[in-house]
């Protein structure tokens, strides 16, 4: 039992709190949950394995599933892309400055990894993985952390045999004792120290966001100028592009592109009823003006690019998709990029099939 519970249990408060719930008044509200309903929602997995479904997955399958569903944000080797969490590495860094906390270096229980992947991932498509896929992904994450070899198969049967390196690295909240000196009968009121000197200034780092109020004051002038440029750009280029696009569609290539598009789906929607999500709707994107999807809040950089009259020609799309951050350093799109040229061609072809 936790220290917190011990503390509380010793007080009079606790004894009233936990007293005789049998006497509690019932209101007869609600209805019994069916076993199927409970099964559908009660998915959590505890450290002792309670809640784990039957299943298994190996490292090799895990690598494939991970590449398809997770690598966009977490990197092919679970090393993390941009600010997205790193899942591997950081062993023995917890007592260093800026420790690297990963599944391997920090997480105490493997159940937490299984449970989180199963219930909350992939980002934007949660609860779409099969139990076997989840076992495989977790096996791959263990492998990425050098905790198992490439032959390893994780299943509900051997699950509890895996102990994570930092399992013993946690203590229960001990502020009441370790920080007992913060409870002071008489805090100092005068002559509390000899002198006061500045030891660090926030202005030196300068990481504070600018106030929008100031930006907004300047914005109307820019906005007023923008429509003129936008009106000019489509008139010159867009209609030509669109006609070309509409005429040639390589059905086979588009079909391959549909598979590639799975990597984009977490953030982008296409087709009827598509809505802006993390990324804008991509209907009619090939040939469209840059940064012009209605209602989508673009990065400043993308908006500015759009204001130059730039257009998503297949060539520009290819350049962007190869390495988005290299194409436009401050784009919001956190996707690392498509490595294969044929994937880019395929996904572009697939996108051509969705017109506005």
């Amino acid at each position, binding site marked *: 039992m936790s220290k917190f519970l011990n503390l509380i*249990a010793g007080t009079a408060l*606790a004894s009233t709190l936990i007293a005789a719930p049998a006497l509690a008044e019932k209101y007869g*509200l609600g209805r019994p949950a069916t076993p199927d*309903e409970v099964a559908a929602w009660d998915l959590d997995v505890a450290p002792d394995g309670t809640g784990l479904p039957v299943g298994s997955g190996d490292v090799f399958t895990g690598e494939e599933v991970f590449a398809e569903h997770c690598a966009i944000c977490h990197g092919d080797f679970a090393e993390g892309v941009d600010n997205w969490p790193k899942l591997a590495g950081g062993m023995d860094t917890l007592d260093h400055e800026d420790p690297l906390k990963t599944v391997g270096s920090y997480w105490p229980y493997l159940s937490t990894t299984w449970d989180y992947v199963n219930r909350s991932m992939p980002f934007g498509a949660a609860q779409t993985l099969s139990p076997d896929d989840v076992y495989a992904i977790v096996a791959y994450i263990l492998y990425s952390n050098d905790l198992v070899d490439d032959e390893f198969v994780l299943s509900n049967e051997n699950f509890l045999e895996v102990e994570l390196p930092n399992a013993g690295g946690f203590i229960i909240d001990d502020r009441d004792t370790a920080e007992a000196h913060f409870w002071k009968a008489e805090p100092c009121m*005068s002559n509390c120290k000899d002198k006061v*000197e500045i030891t660090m200034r926030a202005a030196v780092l300068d990481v504070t966001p600018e106030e929008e109020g100031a930006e907004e004051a300047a914005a109307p002038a820019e906005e007023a100028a923008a429509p003129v440029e936008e009106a000019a750009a489509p008139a010159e280029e867009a209609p030509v592009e669109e006609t070309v696009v509409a005429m040639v569609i390589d059905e086979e290539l588009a079909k391959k592109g549909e598979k590639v598009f799975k990597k984009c789906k977490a953030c982008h929607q296409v087709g009827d009823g598509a809505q802006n999500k993390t990324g804008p709707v991509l209907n009619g994107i090939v040939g469209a003006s840059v940064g012009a999807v209605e209602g989508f809040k673009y990065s400043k950089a993308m908006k500015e690019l759009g204001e130059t009259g730039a257009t998503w020609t297949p060539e520009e799309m290819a350049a962007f998709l190869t390495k988005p951050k290299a194409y436009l350093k401050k784009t919001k799109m956190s996707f690392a990029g498509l490595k294969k040229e044929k994937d880019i061609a395929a996904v572009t072809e697939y996108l051509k099939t969705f017109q506005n």
Partner: protein
Amino acid sequence: MTMSFNGKPSRRAFLKGAVAAGGTVAGASVAKAAGDPLITEVQEWASATGEGVDATPYGLPIEFESDVVRRNVEWLTADTISSINFTPIHALDGTITPQGCAFERHHSGAIELRKEDYRLMINGLVDTPLVFTYEDLERFPRENHVYFCECAANTGMEWAGAQLNGAQFTHGMIHNMEYSGVSLRTLLEEAGLDAAGDLKDKWVYVEGADASSNGRSIPMEKALDDVLVAFKANGEALRKEHGYPVRLVVPGWEGNMWVKWLRRIEVTNQAIESREETSKYTDTLEDGTSRKWTWVMDAKSVVTSPSPQSPIKHGPGPLVVTGLAWSGRGSITGVDVSLDGGITWQEARLGAPGTDKALTRFYLDINWNGEEMFLQSRARDSSGYVQPTKAELREVRGLNSIYHNNCIQTWWVKANGEAENVEVS
């Protein structure tokens, strides 16, 4: 004005008055009387009419207050969908946070969940697993309480050093609202706790309906104490970003446990040790071991004005120093303010006596001499806890803690009235 016999102003008198008013408008523009033209000249708003009652069925703050908004720090997270923004505490007064500018923290974005589609399940070690609709919840006896909700990461960016220049950014992961809802105890008892046996070592696991499926384990003692299943805040429905239609309120404990879009409450015999209670919201100490289950928010305070976003613009003379104080262990009993970086302290005036696990407003009315100040505030709570300095905290916890930074904040107010976030010896 002459009255007619029935007591109403006569039509004739009314017309005479209108002529007289018109005369003033013309006279003022010709004569150019000495003084403030806002007073000596009839302003447009004093002459023409304003908006009718049908103009704004639900009002937003007037346009002149458009800078009093939530802000986020772009570099903090990979994506705004899983991120946090900050309450503009530097520009607010009193203690209640308006919902529209109260900070948001989502792990998978703010979802839209209709009341009609809302279901709350209680399962696990209960006599009868139950499902409630929103309407069911409205039929249980209701309670009203004001509580603060503070993210465990509030002030977290300041662990290693002064980083962000503004009380909004250093201390704005907090809001304080009046909640209306049903006590969690009532709902647990409706499902029946006999099946759980001895309640002392039992837990409830609470979980949200959004894609992050955010879930946290809460000891049964707390669950049966003051936890609320809330559906109104400050008198009206919860906002989408705060968990509409139903969220959990866990008074005094870290904001992550205040599960939004609450969909399930499971009585368990162990902590689930979910991602948000192991890999996150744990505090790594200098030797590499980490504290877990650090639920309660320590006593803390901050001067909200003057501060970097709220500089002194009026020069020397009367100055209102004000700020907020709170404690997850009970009520605020006092706040001390230092103008010299902690050498001397004086007791501030509380706007109202501190209440349990809610924000307390404090004021120190001074006659500023126009010299630089190192403004600090220090909260004291009903448990006897005194808000520590950053040095005192680092001595115990090191530099890698991230969460639960409740140190004394210093604003360096310069002679020109501008303020900066600094650390002092």
